[in-house]
């Protein structure tokens, strides 16, 4: 029976190589990532509850205040948290998960199979997309129900929401994958990745109104994607009058697209050149 099952010695095996379709492998990888994520209960709770919790705390403290320009703080803060949620579910998620998988040998195992390397990244991107989408719905729901968040009422703003969101997580996904090249191992990953995320949140206008930050802080933030994502989200949730409060006096949609696009391409180039399937201790 074994001989038939394994059939290794059969010299008559197909001479022309017909790999499984790329699409089928992508689907399998996406399912592996999603199943693994959903079944890790702590990770699910943390990923979804943390931004909501932050929203509740900040909302309770500052919720009734208005910011300059006659806008409710909730409106500014929800826009910031939406951008921060996208950043966490892409950059932070992958920046920490990939080094752990590299340590455990999961990546080495995959590298020893004929799986196309792109399938691993497609699986991760699928996970990021699903996590980000669920998180967005939660944040919007909490914002509307508890803090009187006004949802955009015209299609063009929803369109802005969509492209800023998609381009933002794409850029931050590549940023996260590229960053893993500079993380030594799984244990040190949170210590490297989390501070980057937290500092960027503070200087990019998530917790504080961007316009009131010191000039140098605004300048530093402008080099990173999160600032542009929060700005993009403000353009979705705040009235156009508020543009006068922005550093450039406008929403700068073209520049948002440009910076996020550069991060996407740059991150991709770095990731392709530096990605390792084994950790350094393994040679």
């Amino acid at each position, binding site marked *: 029976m*074994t*001989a038939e*099952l*394994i*059939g*290794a*010695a*059969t*010299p008559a*095996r*197909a001479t022309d*190589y*017909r*790999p*499984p379709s790329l699409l*089928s*492998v992508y689907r*399998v*990888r996406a*399912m*592996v990532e999603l*199943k*693994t994520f959903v*079944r*890790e209960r702590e990770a699910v709770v943390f990923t979804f509850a943390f931004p909501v919790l932050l929203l509740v705390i900040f909302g309770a403290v500052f919720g009734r205040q208005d910011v300059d320009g006659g806008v409710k703080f909730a409106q500014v803060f929800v826009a910031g948290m939406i951008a921060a949620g996208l950043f966490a579910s892409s950059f932070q998620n992958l920046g920490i998960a990939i080094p*752990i*998988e590299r*340590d*455990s*040998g*999961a990546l*080495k*195992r995959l*590298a*020893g*199979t*004929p*799986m*196309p390397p792109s*399938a691993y990244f497609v699986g991760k991107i699928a996970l990021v997309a699903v996590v980000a989408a669920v998180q967005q719905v939660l944040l919007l729901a909490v914002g509307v129900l508890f803090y009187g968040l006004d949802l955009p009422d015209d299609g063009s703003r929803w369109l802005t929401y969509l492209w800023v969101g998609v381009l933002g997580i794409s850029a931050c996904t590549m940023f996260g994958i590229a960053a893993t090249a500079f993380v030594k191992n799984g244990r040190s990953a949170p210590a490297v990745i989390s501070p980057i995320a937290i500092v960027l949140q503070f200087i990019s206008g998530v917790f504080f109104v961007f316009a009131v930050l010191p000039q140098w802080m605004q300048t530093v933030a402008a080099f990173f994607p999160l600032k542009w994502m929060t700005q993009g989200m403000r353009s979705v949730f705040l009235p156009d009058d508020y543009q006068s409060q922005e550093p450039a006096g406008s929403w700068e949609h073209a520049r948002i697209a440009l910076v996020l696009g550069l991060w996407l391409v740059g991150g991709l180039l770095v990731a392709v050149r530096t990605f390792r399937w*084994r950790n350094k201790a393994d*040679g």
Partner: protein
Amino acid sequence: MSDVAIRVSGLQKTYQGRAAVDGLDLTVRRGEVFSLLGPNGAGKSTTVEILEGYRSRDGGDVAVLGHDPAEATAEWKARIGIVLQRVDDLAQSSELTVREWVSSVAAYFPDPMRPDDAIELVGLADKRDARSSSLSGGQRRRLDVALGIIGRPELLFLDEPTTGFDPEARRQFWGLIESLADAGTTILLTTHYLDEAERLADRVAVINAGRIIEVGAPATLGGRATAAATVRWIGADGPHELTTDEPTRTVLELAARFGGGEVPELVVERPSLEDVYLRMIGGPE
């Protein structure tokens, strides 16, 4: 199709000026179970990982199934199976079931076994729906093997597959390897267990300091088959020991001396594979 599965000549690999593999030559024939023996740091794992395509080499020629593993393609990888030495991904926070693991890896290969058949073959049928993190060490190792053979490899690398097994689990595992070998799979086995190599391998190679010291069938390695035997028995005046090239004659003489009756505690011993191995690598006899 060539009858050689692996051909290595003059393999060199240096880490920070220290040669881990130093002019290693090796030929593994198709369909044979070939075992690499050697102390830690002898260059076994480095050699195997070069053959698997994981590591680059500094010199020498390598052909695995007719291809250079340094230029591994998906097509080539589909023809080999790898059971790595130390991977924790099945234990660490893996929430996939045995079946999900096997089916997902099967999806990467062009012509895989049916996942349930592979699970059956490694004896995990009743654990099919268990999450891999809940398996015992031995069961996880069998899942490792299921993932290694799911693509129906022509050549299977087994790197210390039974480390940490209890004796019963090891015997079961040997049965599995024997059935794979019977099916025609070429197997390259590295192990620390000499009884394992003796039981499974058609030929063994002893490697030390990055070179092959000797290659041969386990029964003849190091002149074992023709080496002097030791005969031991208890006489009226206590234990005796005699080293001889003609143990049969000695036993006959002893039998006569004891009047054709039983010779007390008679033992005839050839040097074990372990004795030969330890002598080769320069360890204690």
